[in-house]
């Protein structure tokens, strides 16, 4: 079976620059069939400023960073709006969501765990796939040194 692919759009969701986005950035370089773009939803201006500084400081300018004003109150809804807008002009959209994989049972109480929620929220949009990229934090990294 011959498989031909149109060029799609890959949206790498970033909240800030830390180790959890590294696998997503590495994946972005592999997605040659996609036009890759980092997307940040600007709920908080201080975070936007910090992100922009880190993005430049770490030399990530090879990947365009789009700061979007959220059109909805919740992160999942705001991302859905962006994806619905982009899917109109692209053959398919791949949404990459970096997420923390934490070692203790109570850690989810302290973290939003938005990745899987976003994936569920986008599931019914045609021509959209979501990748939740977990970054595993070892228990030893969270004890006092």
């Amino acid at each position, binding site marked *: 079976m011959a498989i031909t692919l149109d060029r799609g759009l890959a949206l790498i969701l970033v909240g800030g620059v830390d180790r959890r986005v590294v696998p997503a950035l590495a994946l972005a370089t592999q997605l040659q069939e996609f036009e890759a773009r980092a997307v940040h939803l600007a709920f908080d201006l201080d975070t936007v400023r910090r992100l922009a500084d880190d993005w430049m400081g770490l030399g990530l300018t090879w990947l365009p960073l789009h700061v979007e004003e959220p059109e909805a109150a919740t992160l999942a*809804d705001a991302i859905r709006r962006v994806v619905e807008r982009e899917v109109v002009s692209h053959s398919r959209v791949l949404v990459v969501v970096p997420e923390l994989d934490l070692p203790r049972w109570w850690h989810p109480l302290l973290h939003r765990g938005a990745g899987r929620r976003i994936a569920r929220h986008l599931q019914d949009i045609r021509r959209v*796939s979501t990748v939740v990229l977990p970054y*595993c934090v070892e228990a030893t990294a969270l*004890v006092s040194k």
Partner: protein
Amino acid sequence: MVKRLLVGRPLATSEQEHQRIPKVIALAVFSSDAISSTAYATEEILFVVALGSSSLALGLHTLVPIAVAVALLLAIVVTSYRQTIFAYPSGGGSYVVSRENLGELPSLIAGASLLVDYILTVAVSISAGVAAIISIPTFRGLADQRVLIGIGLIVLITTANLRGIKESGRIFAAPTYIYIVILTLLVGVGLYQVFVGHHISRVPFQPEHFAGSGQFGGSLGLFLILKGFSSGAVALTGVEAISNGVPAFRKPEARNAANTLLWMGVILGTLFLGVSVLAHHLRPYPSHVETVFSQMGMAVFGDGPLYVVLQFATAGILTLAANTAYADFPRLSSIIARDQYLPRQFANRGDRLVFSNGIVFLAIAAGGLLVAFKGLTNALIPLYAVGVFTSFTLSQWGMVRHHRKLRDPGWRRGIAVNAVGAVATGVVLVIVASTKFTSGAWVPLVVVPAIIALFLGIKRHYQRLETALAVDPGDIRLDSPNHTVVVLVGRVHKGVVKAVRYARSLRPNHIAALYVSEDDDDRQHMEDQWARFRFDVPLEIVNSPYRDLIGAVERYLDDLDERWHDETVTVVIPEFVAGRLLSPAQLLHNQSAGAIKLALLFRKDTVVTSVPYHVEREPGSEG
């Protein structure tokens, strides 16, 4: 569907400006707690100074001087908090002022005290409201259902608040204003009768209902007077609410909030003083059978419709005092969460632009107290007076430091106002803590440090995580990791074709399709199908004679890790999307996919991707 019906449609972030409230609604939202205390503060004083070694006559004689002292304290606190509002227009009240000027520990003490106070406010107001409802003769039969009624009221107020502050304000403004009007009428008509009409309808004394022993004689020591004063000081609970919620006001926020606070102070002070002066003349007595308020209402209005309105309005305002806590707790917890002392979820706005996690948490905590105390939460009142005055004192002291630091025009006057506030509220704190220590004021001394320890533990977790996640340019390797993609197949269909195409597009180092077979026939059938479609992806088949799909997939992935030493394994699952997310068809098709996703959720370095295939809407897809 149910959520939309109860809570309403989602609001866009751009609508946030329209969610701000005008002063008229803000007064009802943020003042119901403070103004509701006029319904019980006078009685609280009498319960201390007219009983024990004292007498009703001595108690009534002391009532007005104590009320004047409380009103004076109210004036000092309102004046001080007006300064706070102008200095910190982004809200946060005592917590933010303490954080900016006094440091971490004082701010956490203020934050913990206020959060506890708000939870107690909801529990106490709801149970007081229920008590007022079931004391109306028609509803006395509901006394056994007080917990259930209380929980029902909490659900009602929670739902209204989840709709947004503007809507809850509109819903609950009317009862607050009805209470203010009827109480003004009670005080106005009563004092007119006393001073102009010279006709005093004294409350008929019923010794069998009097909570004390002697009506005359007795002695009133300084300790009892101070204790009475600290009981009356509960009238100040809720005064700080406006300074916490400044951002909820329409622009100019600070000026509107400061003016609303002034109005609240005037209304609260006037009504409280009026009720106390009237009580001095009408001579009601503390009783466990009928409230002082009810006795006064009966004396002034008789048992006509105005008395009934007074009773219903009192029940309404006592219940709605909880609404002030609903306006402030979520806002304060969001600020504390942004500082990383509470889980981040508290800083999230819901789709109605309110901090819905804070609202739900407050409802659960207050509901828990209501159930634990079987709906009788009056014993909790001394607990929150300590918290309130702790946060008042810290806030005022913080403002003194603020003025000294900035030295803006008028800073000397600012220092004087806030220093007087700090000393006055500090003295009251000592009085409340010492006179009510055995009545429960010791509890905050245990609870608040425990909450602070929790705050610090949460902060420590976030800081360690931040260190663990810190990244520098050397950490960002953009060369491809050793990446394997596995496509799970159950049978060959259009969804599998799409999933294989997607898997290829990831350009992994290794790619395989995985099929879990039940027996040799099944295995042969799948191999034939795969060959017929000529996929350019190798099919690997593992046997699972006992149909343990998840175990077979996990064992296969472990084998792959050993075979290719992967840094990342992506498991691609073709998934049908048949209509709505929770439709029967959807559940029927994707049970296995859901179970596998759940099982692999915590598998290290494993990415699970669903490739949706829209059955109804993609009829022309290739395959």
